[in-house]
């Protein structure tokens, strides 16, 4: 398992962009066969409430573009100074070219700029940060623009209770740059590819191309409908995976950094749902006030955009109030893949959550 530490690299700004269309689980009683009790239990136990989703014309690239424009506008950086753009997404505009190239063009970046996509979901933001740190530490880059965003709401079947009420959409832009005065940053990265079938869109890739057959939704034993082109999630397996691996990986990273949990100001986990987050926090015996978990009930599970949304939406004021704040970021999900980072954030040029404007 790779663990690594960097110095002289810092995060200098974060902007997250969310769609304005809001859906409420209270309006979806029909999906639960009119069972008010079941819906109430889901709200209470899992913490489902409302979520923001895109319309049919808007993509993750659009959300990321607006976040990036705002980030560049608010930071003392010219588009020509960006050496690399990384786009973390599992819902790109095209199967090729990659979103990073498309957005490189739309943002008017220099030709002396590398651009690549990373096909990861809930762990992707931390993986993207790790790549950005690696690129800068190796000496090749001064500034990396990390875009992370997904529109998972467009992959779920509206009649699949296991996923439809969970997922929202979002796009983010983070600027990572060289800085002599910054504190050390620590990462740990993990994969368990044997669990890949627990969270998967089976059709649409080369293994099973889309056909008339893959477009047909079929009812499963629990009464949920989905086609092979829709997202499938084995909720119990993903839950087990999360509460087993996440606490372990957080402890490992803290040990590697020789730090106590008390030394961390906020634990920003991938905003899967409140139930998973509170179970992870309980196992780690964390002070619940240090664990942002309102993002998911406001915006839904936003896959790769959930960590930046939690930072911009729940921590912007806390970060602005102090010269330096220590954050432990941790994402986990599709792959199965999970990654954690211990970073110090201070003096951000911008830390903002914005609404998408068409």
């Amino acid at each position: 398992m790779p663990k690594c530490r960097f110095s002289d690299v810092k995060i200098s700004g974060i902007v997250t962009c969310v769609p304005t269309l809001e859906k409420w689980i209270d309006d979806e009683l029909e999906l639960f066969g009119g069972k008010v009790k079941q819906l109430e239990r889901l709200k209470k136990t899992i913490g489902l409430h409302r979520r923001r989703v895109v319309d049919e014309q808007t993509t993750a690239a659009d959300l990321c573009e607006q976040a990036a424009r705002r980030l560049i506008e608010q930071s003392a950086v010219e588009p020509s100074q960006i050496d690399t753009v990384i786009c973390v997404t599992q819902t790109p505009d095209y199967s090729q070219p990659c979103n990073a190239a498309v957005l490189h063009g739309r943002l008017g970046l220099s030709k002396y700029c590398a651009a690549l996509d990373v096909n990861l979901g809930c762990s992707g933001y931390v993986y993207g940060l790790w790549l950005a740190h690696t690129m800068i530490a190796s000496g090749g880059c001064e500034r990396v623009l990390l875009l992370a965003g997904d529109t998972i709401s467009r992959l779920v079947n509206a009649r699949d209770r296991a996923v439809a009420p969970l997922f929202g959409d979002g796009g983010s832009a983070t600027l990572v740059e060289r800085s002599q005065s910054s504190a050390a940053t620590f990462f740990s990265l993990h994969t368990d590819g044997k669990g890949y079938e627990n969270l998967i869109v089976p059709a649409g890739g080369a293994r099973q191309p889309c056909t008339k057959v893959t477009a047909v939704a079929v009812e499963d034993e629990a009464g949920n409908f989905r086609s092979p082109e829709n997202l499938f999630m084995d909720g119990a397996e993903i839950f087990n995976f999360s509460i087993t691996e996440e606490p372990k990986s957080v402890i490992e990273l803290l040990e590697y950094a020789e730090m106590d949990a008390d030394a961390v100001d906020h634990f920003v986990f991938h905003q899967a749902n409140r139930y998973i987050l509170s179970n992870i926090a309980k196992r780690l015996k964390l002070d619940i006030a240090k664990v942002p978990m309102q993002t998911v009930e406001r915006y839904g599970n936003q896959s790769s955009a959930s960590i930046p949304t939690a930072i911009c939406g729940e921590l912007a004021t806390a970060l602005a109030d102090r010269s330096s704040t220590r954050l432990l970021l941790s994402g986990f999900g599709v792959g199965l893949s999970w990654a954690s980072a211990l970073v110090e954030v201070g003096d951000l040029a911008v830390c903002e959550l914005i609404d998408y404007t068409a």
Partner: protein
Amino acid sequence: MELDTFIKNFEEAVEDVEVGSLSGNTVYRSLEHWDSLAVLTVIAMVDAEYDLRLKAKELKQIETLSELHALLESKQST
């Protein structure tokens, strides 16, 4: 692992089940409130109370609370 305590923990994990209403012979999958959410809350209870990993598949393969209790005891001894 006490069967009585386990049944009480189970009753608390599955919401809307009256405490004291279940026994070792209860076929839990026939309970009115047994659904995918109950599967999650029982898995979480087993993890928190007994530090054991229970799979959703295992919950589907057995019938009664006594059998579930026996399965957990066998996990505990391995």
